[in-house]
């Protein structure tokens, strides 16, 4: 693994170093705000979520283990989990497949291609490239629709309910689809 400056900033934050916390904020806030916005699809809610994200980062930084995850991966997981929890805690809005599920949370038309063509963000420089490429390749072995559903679920925080409406399959079918997709992904990565 190459140097991971974000990881160092999280470690310093764990020691209550406010300067490091600020640096961490400036290095990562745009990415994390992008995560919150994409999942919550509401600017003011995404702003609230951001405050919680960095509050949680400050409070939980000592739980971060640099041996287990890149700094940015950990931070994005914090932002995703918090945003998805917020999304799920919203009062149930009537799902309208014509509007919400399709227009907002539907996966892109050709997600496999998008995964393969993913633009390299700056954090990629610190990801072991071959490992990332392997994951991309393994996504490529999935059936396109299944890869699309997995990707839509992960990036948008779509629920099984939304996905089943969007793909027009029963909820349990969607669930076993995705489970099989995940299983296949794992087998491919372990092969």
């Amino acid at each position, binding site marked *: 693994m190459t140097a991971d400056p974000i990881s160092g900033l999280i470690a310093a934050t764990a020691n209550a170093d406010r300067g490091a916390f600020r640096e961490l904020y400036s290095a990562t806030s745009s990415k994390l705000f992008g*995560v919150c916005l*994409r999942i919550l699809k509401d600017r003011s809610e995404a702003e609230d979520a951001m405050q919680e994200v960095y*509050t949680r980062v400050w409070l939980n930084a000592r739980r971060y283990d640099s041996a287990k995850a890149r700094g940015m991966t950990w931070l994005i997981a914090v932002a*995703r989990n918090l945003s998805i929890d917020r999304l799920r805690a919203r009062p149930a809005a009537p799902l309208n497949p014509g509007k919400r599920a399709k227009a907002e949370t539907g996966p892109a038309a050709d997600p496999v291609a*998008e995964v393969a063509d*993913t633009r390299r963000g700056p954090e990629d420089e610190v990801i072991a490239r071959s490992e990332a490429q392997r994951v991309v390749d393994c996504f490529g072995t999935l059936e396109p629709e299944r890869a699309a559903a997995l990707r839509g679920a992960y990036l948008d925080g779509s629920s099984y309910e939304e996905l089943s409406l969007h793909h027009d399959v029963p909820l349990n079918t969607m669930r076993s689809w*995705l*489970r099989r997709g995940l299983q296949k992904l794992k087998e491919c990565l372990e092969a």
Partner: protein
Amino acid sequence: MSDPAGHMPDREALAAEYVLGTLPLAERLTAEALIASDVNFASLVADWQARLAVLDDDYKEATPPRDMLQRIESRLFPEAARPKRGWLWGAGAGLALAVLALVVFLPPATPPEPAVTATLTGEGQELAVQASYDPQAGALTVRRTAGPAAGAGQDYELWLIPEGQDAQSIGLVRDGDLEIPLDTLPEGATLAITLEPQGGSPTGVATGPLLVAAVISGG
């Protein structure tokens, strides 16, 4: 949920689906409680996070409002000029649950150790439970305020989860007020209710679904 075609043990499927993000809230909360209490489960989650993290590249950057850092800092360090171990110590536990929690503190200016009132709620749950802690009396009073009583042969079991520690059973919520002697209710602690067999979990560890929860926090 059994899935003949999935071939993944339920535990692993829960970890994978938690990371994928598709689970309904109640199952997400179960997963989050497991992450905090079970290192094996936490490591399954970390493995799945590593597998799916390549998708993170697709999140586009977006510039947050200019005063965001200030807002965060004033929340974290309310008295920057007079450093003090404020509420943030210990407020970290299960902040995941904070979105569900309605926690009311008396205004910060009121006399020392204000009473704390929290309402335990959960998505899709009719059940609501109010918990009031009186630090002077050292007593936590808990009462079901909405939703049905537990079914026949079942009980609502109340758990106290201090930050970073295991859940402790502190009582069964039946009809009427439940008063529990408690020396302290630290900020950051989580109060949660699971559905258990009558008399409470036989193992001392929550076995049933998490129904409602609240994180004690303030500001």
